């Protein structure tokens, strides 16, 4: 009962035991029967429960010893979870697989932390395999003393750990004017969240001694694209981390091993992976990655530049596209909300396409620039419905609709920063589909 601002409505809707059992059974079925092949084969539940359950039997696995502990191993998920996979982009398909991306199965994520093996990827020239013993981080430019660090040097600083989401600025770009994606993995899967461990960048910059007049910081990766961005120094000094840890272990190679930048709340590509060079400068470099790419089309042929923040957003992950409700009854609508400008203040849910909204339960922990869970107990009457969530952040910003954004920006080509209210339709037969357009 202490898990958040439980509304009187959700409290009164707390299900009786039979409903709860039915719901749990639905959850198990979701895990057990979903199709492994194709992103679309997600079933919420196989059949409605009968009024009285069958007598229980003792299962085989209780009547025999299990697997012994091997001398050493890296643990893996149950074979029954093998469908829970990152998936390479398949709505927009690249003709090469080096500057490419893979998406997180958000509909299968339990809790706010994305497991490292499911964390989304975006690379500009593939994933390098870097020897940490040979990796170097250099700080130079407008500093009193240029410095170089080994990984061993960096490990000697006090470690700071913080939970933050990362979202690609292009998350959802296929789904502005048409319902191109089937599942939430395809429409929102360039989003993940982890506990990051590392060092405040400010400590290292102070050690090098930033010269007066310095206003921007260039960060560069050691990958084959030498990916690089210009970042305002105020943000760098305020809350940016140089991270080597992720969810209790070293970064995965595809997430920047052995060292990456982590810029809380900003579009993912600025959190430069495989970080090896920091240069302090007085003005941005206007790289290709901040002019020809990662800029937003605006009216009258213009482009918005340095649009870093990922604005407040939410999405329902269950029920979501590709799932099927077995029949009328009580369902737990659940999903994630997040904001690059602060913490989540509220989430509302509609089941009638936005005519009427109810506050959802926002679950603790509610952290700054971090995925936050919400849930709402929904009684589906079996008629066609349209469900969606709408988040409000600590600045008071309310998540808008695509139509509202289209009034002020140009929705043409690959449009980034898609933080819109994302509706799913539920048909009379229980099928859940993308209803963005």
């Amino acid at each position, binding site marked *: 009962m202490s898990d958040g601002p439980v509304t009187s409505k959700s409290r009164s809707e707390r299900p009786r035991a039979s409903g709860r059992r039915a719901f749990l059974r639905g959850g198990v079925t979701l895990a057990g029967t979903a199709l492994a092949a194709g992103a679309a084969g997600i079933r919420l539940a196989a059949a409605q429960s009968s009024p009285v359950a069958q007598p229980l039997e003792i299962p085989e696995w209780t009547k025999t010893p299990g697997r012994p502990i091997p001398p050493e191993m890296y643990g893996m998920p149950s074979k029954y979870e093998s469908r829970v996979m990152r998936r390479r982009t398949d709505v927009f398909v690249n003709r090469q697989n080096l500057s490419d991306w893979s998406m997180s199965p958000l509909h299968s994520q339990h809790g706010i932390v994305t497991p490292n093996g499911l964390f989304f990827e975006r690379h500009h020239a593939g994933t390098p395999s870097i020897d940490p013993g040979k990796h170097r981080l250099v700080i130079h430019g407008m500093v009193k003393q240029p410095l170089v660090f080994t990984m061993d040097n960096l490990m000697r600083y006090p470690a700071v750990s913080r939970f933050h989401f990362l979202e690609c600025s292009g998350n959802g770009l296929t789904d502005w004017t048409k319902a191109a994606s089937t599942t939430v993995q395809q429409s929102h899967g360039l989003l993940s969240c982890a506990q990051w461990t590392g060092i405040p960048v400010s400590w290292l910059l102070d050690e090098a001694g930033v010269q007066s007049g310095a206003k921007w910081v260039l960060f560069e990766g050691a990958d084959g694209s030498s990916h690089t961005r210009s970042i305002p120094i105020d943000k760098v000094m305020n809350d940016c981390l140089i991270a080597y840890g992720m969810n209790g272990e070293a970064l995965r190679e595809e997430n920047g091993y052995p060292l990456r930048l982590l810029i809380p709340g900003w579009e993912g590509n600025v959190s430069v992976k495989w970080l090896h060079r920091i*240069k302090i400068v007085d003005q941005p470099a206007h790289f290709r990655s901040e002019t020809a790419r990662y800029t937003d089309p605006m009216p009258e042929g213009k482009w918005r530049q340095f649009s870093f923040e990922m604005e407040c957003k939410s999405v329902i992950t269950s029920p979501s596209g590709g799932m099927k409700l077995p029949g009328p009854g009580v369902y737990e609508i659940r999903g994630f909300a997040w904001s690059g400008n602060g913490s989540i203040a509220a989430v509302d849910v509609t089941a009638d396409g936005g005519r009427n909204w109810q506050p959802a339960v926002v679950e603790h922990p509610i952290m700054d620039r971090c995925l936050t869970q919400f849930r709402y107990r929904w009684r589906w009457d079996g008629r066609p419905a349209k469900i969606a969530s709408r988040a409000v952040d600590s600045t008071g910003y309310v998540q808008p609709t695509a139509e509202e954004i289209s009034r002020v920006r140009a929705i043409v080509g690959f449009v980034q920063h898609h933080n819109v209210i994302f509706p799913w339709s539920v048909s009379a037969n229980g099928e859940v589909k993308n209803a963005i357009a």
Partner: protein
Amino acid sequence: MRSPRTSVMVALIVAVAAGATMVTAQEPQIGRPSVGFGTPITEQAIAPWNIDVRTSDGKGLPPGRGTATEGKTVYDAKCLACHGDKAAGGSVYGAMVGGIGSFTTKTRVLTPGSMYPYAPILFDYTRRAMPMDKPLTLTNDEVYALAAYILALNGLIPETAVMDAESLPKVKMPNRDGFIPDTRPDVKATRCMTDCPPIGVIK
């Protein structure tokens, strides 16, 4: 006896008074190290990694030169397989020519010619990231020549023009003034709860 909360507050006040950067309001200030572990290095020693170009004025462009004619030879050998003949688009990537004037139409065609506000971006990006299978292997002359070739194909310089650290930043790019600063939040949605307009779609 101090409560834990008071201790945290005192720690924060001390940390702020000492000039430390406040990390977040929720967590106690973690000890800022009084000793650093960086090793001094000279800019000369960093030079092999120091490849960024300030593209607005070309600061950081290295010595070297090239023309479009020379660039075509390099292009045909090292770029054509992915980008196609005359940069018209190939097996992997789309056109790098054309699109100038398309940004006010319904289909914006993004090429270096139409999109780059500053010509030195061609040098910076090509040197750091191309060719995709062998980045950072082109000579500076080859990179200047490729920049000249792409600019000439886009009609932005004559085929005979020599591109170097002096001339490349002076090439006038059509999208020079095409960028505007971020002024978000640019949408002010309201938190309507009952009898609201339905979720709209883009027409």
